[in-house]
C-alpha cells in the first residue's frame, strides 16, 4: 500500500490542494518509493457496491472511501435528490421548506470518488456476487451493502393499498407523499379532524408519529385553531410517551387526543375513499385528513437478496452488520434487526460506519474492529420545545445492548430553557448529520 497521499485523503477527502500536498509528501520521501496514487483509485483493493442513498447507504459509501481510497465504491440510488424523513414533520408544521430536507450526491462523487449510479437495483445474485440494474448493467462486488430502508406492507392493514395511499397518505417516505399530506392539511377546513393511524412495533422512527401529531397541531393552532388531532394507536406505549403527553398538554391543551390499544385505538380497516377507519371493536372514526402510518418491512431488494427472515426484516451479525443468512452482504439502517437500537437515521449512519470499517478490515484480511454505536433522536413538540432520547450501544454477550447507565430521555421536569436548547440542538443535529452523510448544508 502506498503511503503518499493517504492521510490527507482519508481524513478530509480529496481536494486539489490535498492531492498536491500528497504528491509533495511522496516526492519528498523517496525511500518509501511511493508513486502518487491517482486521486480516484482504480479499486485495486476491492469492489464494494452500496444500494440505497439514504442515511445508511450514503454514509457507508463515504466512510468506505475515507478508510480506504483504493476501494472501488459504487452507490446505486434512483433519486438524484434524497428527501429525509427526519425533519419532514417540520415541513408539515410549516417550520421548514422541502428544499431544506433535500440532499444530493455531489460530495460523494466529487470529493470521495464514489461512483454514483442513478438507477434501480433490480436483482441480486449472491452466488455470482453481482447486482443487475434497471439500466441493463451488471455490477460485480466483493462486498455488498444494502441500505434499502422500508417498504410498506400493502393490504396488511385491510383497505390500505397503493391507491388508498393517494387519498390517505402515509408520508412515511419523504417526497411526494409528504407534499400531498401537507396540501391536504392546508386544504382542511377549520374545525376538522386530522386522524393519524399509528402502527405496532417495529417501524421506522418510533417517535415519528407523535412528533408528526405535534407539528400538525402546531400548524393547526396557528391557522385552524378549532381543529383537532386524533391519534389511533395499535399499541399502549410509545417512544418518549410521558414527554410527548406533557408537552401536548402544555402547548396544545386538549386539541391532541391519543387512543391506545386498550382504549380501542387499533385500526383494523381503512376506507380511504370515505376517509374512515374502523377499530378492533368496531368504532368508526371519520377524518377530514387521514394519515395512515402502515405496517412496514425491509425494502424489497433485501428480499431479492435473500437476507430477510419471516419477520420481513434482516437479521445481521452485530459486529459487522453482515447478513446472518448470506455472506458478503451487509445490511444497515431501518431494514436491519438491530434492537435495542431504534430504526432512526442516526442509527443507520452509525451502523453504516461499523459496516464500512468491518468491510475495509475484511478486505485487508484484518480482524473486525470492535463496534460502537450511539443514537440521539430529537423530537420537536413545538418550535421552541424539543425533547430527546439518547443511547450508547455495544456488544454484550453476543448481542447489541445499551451500555448500562448511559442514554435515556430528557428529564420530565426540564426547564423551558432546556426544552428550547433541545429544539435548537435538534436543528444542529440535523444539519450536522446531513453534512456527515451527504456533505450538504441544508
Amino acid at each position, binding site marked *: *500500500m502506498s*503511503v*503518499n497521499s*493517504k*492521510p*490527507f485523503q*482519508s*481524513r*478530509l477527502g480529496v481536494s486539489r490542494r490535498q492531492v498536491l500536498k500528497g504528491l509533495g509528501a511522496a516526492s519528498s520521501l523517496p525511500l518509501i518509493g511511493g508513486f502518487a496514487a491517482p486521486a480516484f483509485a482504480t479499486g485495486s483493493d476491492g469492489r464494494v457496491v452500496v444500494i440505497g442513498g439514504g442515511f445508511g447507504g450514503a454514509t457507508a459509501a463515504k*466512510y468506505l472511501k*475515507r*478508510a*480506504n481510497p483504493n476501494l472501488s465504491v459504487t452507490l446505486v440510488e434512483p433519486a438524484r435528490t434524497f428527501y429525509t424523513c427526519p425533519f419532514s414533520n417540520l415541513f408539515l408544521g410549516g417550520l421548514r421548506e422541502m428544499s431544506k430536507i433535500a440532499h444530493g450526491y455531489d460530495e460523494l462523487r466529487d470529493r470521495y470518488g464514489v461512483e454514483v449510479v442513478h438507477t434501480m437495483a433490480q436483482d441480486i445474485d449472491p452466488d455470482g456476487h453481482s447486482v443487475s440494474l434497471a439500466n441493463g448493467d451488471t455490477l460485480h462486488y466483493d462486498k455488498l451493502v444494502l441500505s434499502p430502508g422500508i417498504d410498506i406492507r400493502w393490504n396488511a392493514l385491510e383497505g390500505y393499498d397503493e391507491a388508498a395511499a393517494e387519498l390517505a397518505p402515509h408520508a412515511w417516505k419523504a417526497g411526494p407523499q409528504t407534499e400531498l399530506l401537507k396540501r391536504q392539511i392546508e386544504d382542511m377546513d377549520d374545525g376538522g379532524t386530522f386522524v393519524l393511524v399509528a402502527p405496532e412495533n417495529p417501524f421506522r422512527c418510533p417517535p415519528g408519529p407523535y412528533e408528526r401529531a405535534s407539528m400538525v397541531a402546531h400548524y393547526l393552532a396557528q391557522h385552524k385553531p378549532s381543529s383537532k388531532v386524533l391519534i389511533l394507536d395499535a399499541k399502549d406505549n410509545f417512544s418518549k410517551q410521558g414527554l410527548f403527553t406533557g408537552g401536548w398538554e402544555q402547548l396544545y391543551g386538549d386539541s391532541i387526543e391519543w387512543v391506545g390499544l386498550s382504549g380501542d385505538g387499533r385500526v383494523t380497516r381503512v376506507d380511504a375513499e370515505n376517509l374512515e377507519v374502523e377499530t378492533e371493536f368496531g368504532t368508526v372514526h371519520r377524518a377530514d385528513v387521514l394519515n395512515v402510518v402502515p405496517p412496514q418491512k425491509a425494502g424489497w431488494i433485501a428480499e431479492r437478496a435473500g437476507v430477510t427472515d419471516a419477520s420481513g426484516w434482516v437479521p445481521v451479525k452485530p459486529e459487522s452488520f453482515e447478513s446472518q443468512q448470506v455472506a458478503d452482504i451487509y445490511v444497515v439502517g431501518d431494514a436491519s434487526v438491530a434492537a435495542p437500537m431504534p430504526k432512526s437515521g*442516526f442509527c443507520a*449512519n*452509525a451502523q453504516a*460506519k*461499523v459496516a464500512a*470499517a468491518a468491510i*475495509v*478490515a475484511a478486505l485487508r484480511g*484484518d480482524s473486525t*474492529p*470492535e*463496534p*460502537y*454505536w*450511539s*443514537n*440521539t433522536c430529537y423530537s420537536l413538540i413545538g418550535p421552541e420545545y424539543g425533547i*430527546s432520547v*439518547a*443511547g*450508547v*450501544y*455495544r456488544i454484550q454477550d453476543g448481542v447489541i445492548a445499551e*451500555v448500562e*447507565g*448511559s*442514554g*435515556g430521555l*430528557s428529564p420530565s421536569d426540564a426547564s423551558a*430553557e*432546556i426544552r428550547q*436548547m*433541545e429544539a*435548537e*440542538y435538534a*436543528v*444542529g*443535529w440535523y*444539519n*450536522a*448529520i446531513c*453534512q*456527515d452523510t451527504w*456533505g450538504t448544508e441544508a
Partner: protein
Amino acid sequence: MNVRLPRAATAAIAASLLLGATQQALADDYDLQREVMAGGCANCHGTDGARAGNVPPLAGRDADYLEERLLAFKRNEVADTTIMNRIAKGFSDDELASLAEHFANVEQE
C-alpha cells in the same frame, strides 16, 4: 564489529524511529478502531468533529480540555446539559481520553 553508541544517541535514534513509526502509522492507518469509536460524534459535531454550528466543534481542540469536559459530562458536573451527560456515560474514562486525543489531532482544513 560491535559499535556502541552513547546512551543519548541511542535515545535520539529511538525517538526518531518512533516519530517515523508514528508518521508511518498516520499514513497507513486511518485508525479504523478509533474512527469507529468516534463515529457517532460526527452525527452532531460533523465529520471529524469539524463542523462549526450551534453544536460546538471538537476538531483541533486541546486534548486535556476535551477530556476534562467529557469526564465532567459523565459525572453530571456540567449544568444545563442536554444529551452529553447521557452519551458520555456510555464510555469508559480511558475511551473518553482516547476520543479527546483523537479529536485534538484531527487535521484542520
